[in-house]
């Protein structure tokens, strides 16, 4: 097989579609390419494929959890949440898995299918190799959308996100906005009714599946939805539900525990920036504390529509909604985040800070993390600029003490020439 593929590679290397073949070939085999003249003769083992693969590995637990949770939320909405909940009995079951398989898997296939097709086409047109950036984007997309998102909608959004969000800037490594979040934002602004409200988070709700024994259609409000409507009392989820993720929400964002483990794995492997994760967490806590203080000082009364969200314990923001997922997997995107280490601290802090701010003040859709990250993507180059300017200024200051000697032509040297 190795030899056969090599022969095909040699045969197609002048063809226009060679990048498409090479993408598949290099997926199977790391290439036989050796180091070139004028550089190091050996290279470290890591390449972009390995880096991206590590992120995908860190996302797989969230995907699997999302598949089961899709079924769990669906049946719980119909039959009511089980009283004596046990993971093996009520969560990891075949019927939950089947619901997840029929809802989440198509999202994954459409996301990868459409996105990779566009990547291949652009690679062939522009004559460069297929870059691996979309491998992570394609995995992220199904995890950050509601479970019943229509597939045609997702396909359009993916096409928009990949072409406008990335390829027009020059492809992987050149984009300004996180492509997965661009896709999410496109969906949110183009089809808001499919992205918010209490009908989209549970499979079957939009189709009018009814509760067992009644004519009422099922629904499922997210925790942030309850809070935004000041309906804290109706919210029947415990802290452990929130932390472990047995709550409605976008497919892969609910389990803080698995996100935390994924984040630790990414930090341990040195693939994602711990600076961003830590500072974003600090930023979110700081904003949450500020809001809690506003409540403590009594500046906002309980009839205010912001009351429940502001009074929500500051640390709980981290275990509901998409904040944790955004901090671990989206804010750390190396291309669109700050690129300097000091910039990463500032960038991360502001991501967390603004996420919670938008969450509390956005009346229509109580989730802020994707908007906060997109906003900070735009400001990341500015942050980097000022960080780098610090280095430039230091250099300029040092240059004032420069010891420059005038170039001379010593007499003795001249005689040599003659």
């Amino acid at each position, binding site marked *: 097989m190795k030899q056969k593929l090599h022969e095909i590679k040699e045969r197609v290397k002048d063809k226009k579609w060679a990048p498409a073949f090479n993408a598949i070939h290099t997926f199977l085999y790391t290439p036989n390419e050796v180091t070139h003249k004028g550089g190091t003769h*050996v290279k470290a*083992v890591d390449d972009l494929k390995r880096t991206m693969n590590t992120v995908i590995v860190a996302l797989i637990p969230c995907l699997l959890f999302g598949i089961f949770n899709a079924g769990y939320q669906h049946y719980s909405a119909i039959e009511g949440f089980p009283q004596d909940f046990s993971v093996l009995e009520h969560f990891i079951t075949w019927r939950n898995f089947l619901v997840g398989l029929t809802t989440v898997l198509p999202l994954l296939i459409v996301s990868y299918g459409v996105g990779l097709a566009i990547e291949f086409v652009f690679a062939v047109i522009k004559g460069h190799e297929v870059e691996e950036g979309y491998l992570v984007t394609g995995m992220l997309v199904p995890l950050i959308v509601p479970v019943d998102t229509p597939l045609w909608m997702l396909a359009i959004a993916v096409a928009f996100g990949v072409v406008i969000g990335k390829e027009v800037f020059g492809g992987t*490594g050149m984009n300004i906005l996180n492509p997965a979040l661009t896709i999410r934002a496109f969906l949110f602004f183009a089809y808001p009714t499919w992205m918010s409200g209490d009908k989209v988070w549970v499979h079957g709700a939009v189709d009018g599946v009814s509760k067992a024994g009644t004519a009422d259609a099922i629904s499922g409000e997210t925790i942030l939805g309850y809070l935004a409507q000041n309906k804290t009392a109706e919210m029947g989820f415990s802290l452990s539900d929130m932390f472990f993720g047995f709550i409605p929400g976008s497919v892969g964002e609910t389990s803080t525990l698995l996100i935390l483990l994924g984040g630790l794995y990414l930090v341990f492997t040195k693939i994602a920036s711990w600076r961003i994760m830590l500072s974003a967490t600090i930023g979110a806590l700081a904003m949450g504390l500020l809001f809690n203080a506003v409540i403590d000082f009594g500046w906002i009364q309980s009839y205010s529509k912001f009351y429940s969200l502001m009074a929500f314990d500051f640390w709980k923001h981290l275990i509901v909604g998409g904040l944790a997922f955004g901090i671990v997997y989206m804010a750390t995107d190396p291309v669109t*985040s700050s690129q300097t280490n000091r910039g990463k601290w500032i960038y991360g802090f502001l991501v967390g800070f603004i996420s919670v701010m938008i969450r509390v003040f956005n009346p229509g859709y109580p989730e802020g993390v994707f908007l906060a990250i997109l906003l900070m993507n735009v400001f990341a180059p500015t942050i980097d600029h000022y960080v780098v300017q610090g280095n430039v200024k230091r250099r300029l200051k040092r*240059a004032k003490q420069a010891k420059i000697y005038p170039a001379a032509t010593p007499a*003795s*040297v001249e005689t040599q020439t003659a």
Partner: protein
Amino acid sequence: MSQDIRIKKGLNLNLVGAAEHAFHKEVQSSTYGIYLDDFHGLTPKLILKEGAEVKAGEPVFYDKNNPDIQFVSPVSGEIVAVERGERRRILNVKILADKEQEFVKHGKFLSSDTDRDGMIAHFLKSGLWPFVKQRPFDIIADPRQTPKAIFVSGLNTGPLNVDLDFVLKGSEEKLQAALSALQLLTPGAVHVSVSSKKNSVFSTLDDIVLHEVSGPHPAGLVGSQIAQIDPINKGEVVWVVGAQDLVIIGELLLTGQYNASRSIAVAGSKISDPKYIKTKIGAEVAPLLEVSGADLSNTRVIAGDVLTGTQVSADAHLRFYGTQLTAIAEGNDYEFFGWNKPVFDKVSPTRALTFSWLNKKKAYDLDTNTNGEHRAFVVTGSYEEVFPLDIYPMQLLKACMVKDLDEMEQLGLYEVAPEDFSLTEFICISKQPHQAIIREGLDLLKQELG
């Protein structure tokens, strides 16, 4: 005023086939080569034609832009070939060595006998000048300029590098003569950096400022040391001389003869008996490999180390500045699912199913495979882990790529040489050619502003 240098960021690349502290017997080389590529940016003008007889130390060509700088033959013999490339550019000059070596006689010339101009003139006329390189631009120094300081790195930290303390033992007198001469050339100091771990031959010498260096590679690169001791500012010039070249300089000053002798390390995984060999600049590579038991099937031979050296064919010659010969396996083979399976036998700066972090002492047998394809810059923050200078490496590389002269200058291009980017190139996930990018940037900056 001794200032110690502690380098924290870096990476020691531990390879198999390190040279033992012992010498092979000397081997004869029938021809010697001078490769013009070694002198970056040089436009050579031949003095002697093919067929001419030369003595050791006799000028063969000079720099057209700076005719004072002469390049001399390492041996006496006959110029048998001048190989030319595109547009008749001279590639190399080959010299068939005489059995009896004849030297140009300059006579003893010490720093106490002369002043700065006299010493510069002596360096130029005797062919020592090409050993003096300058920063910025990492080229042969311009004798009309005055450097604010001169730097010598007295330790090597790169992969399979020569142990300077071993090869310089017994050369104290020559080193002292050379260093005293260098002290004449600058109004500033001659900074010599030595390892903090062992006693160096330099520690007893005069006319120098000694610095003890600790930390991982690139602690031994002179660029890392300059940045800590006395960083280069815009407009400033520093000169740099290799530690082994000091011996040649010192010997010429003491005896009047240009003796291009070098102790080189022959090392690497394809060498069965890695040891040191006493030879001369420009000697044939093949006999050196043979005596070291090199396996030449699917092998890359490198004059220099695996991070900064030049690939040479087995019938070529040693280069002017390199002090080692490395032979490693070519990695021209595919690897099934090489991008996602756990890797134990290669070096990695991450822990993404790569396990070189488990055992930092382990020696690796790396081949020349790129371990992946060239990509745009994606990952950030990894270069900083191995880059000890106060410079933003990726930003500087990008400034060079887009040819933004202002940014190149502001971000510190004057302070670096391509070799300072060898480690970032080694770990680069996007497999970008950092050293080539920096070299192009330096050339452009020199052409436009230098």
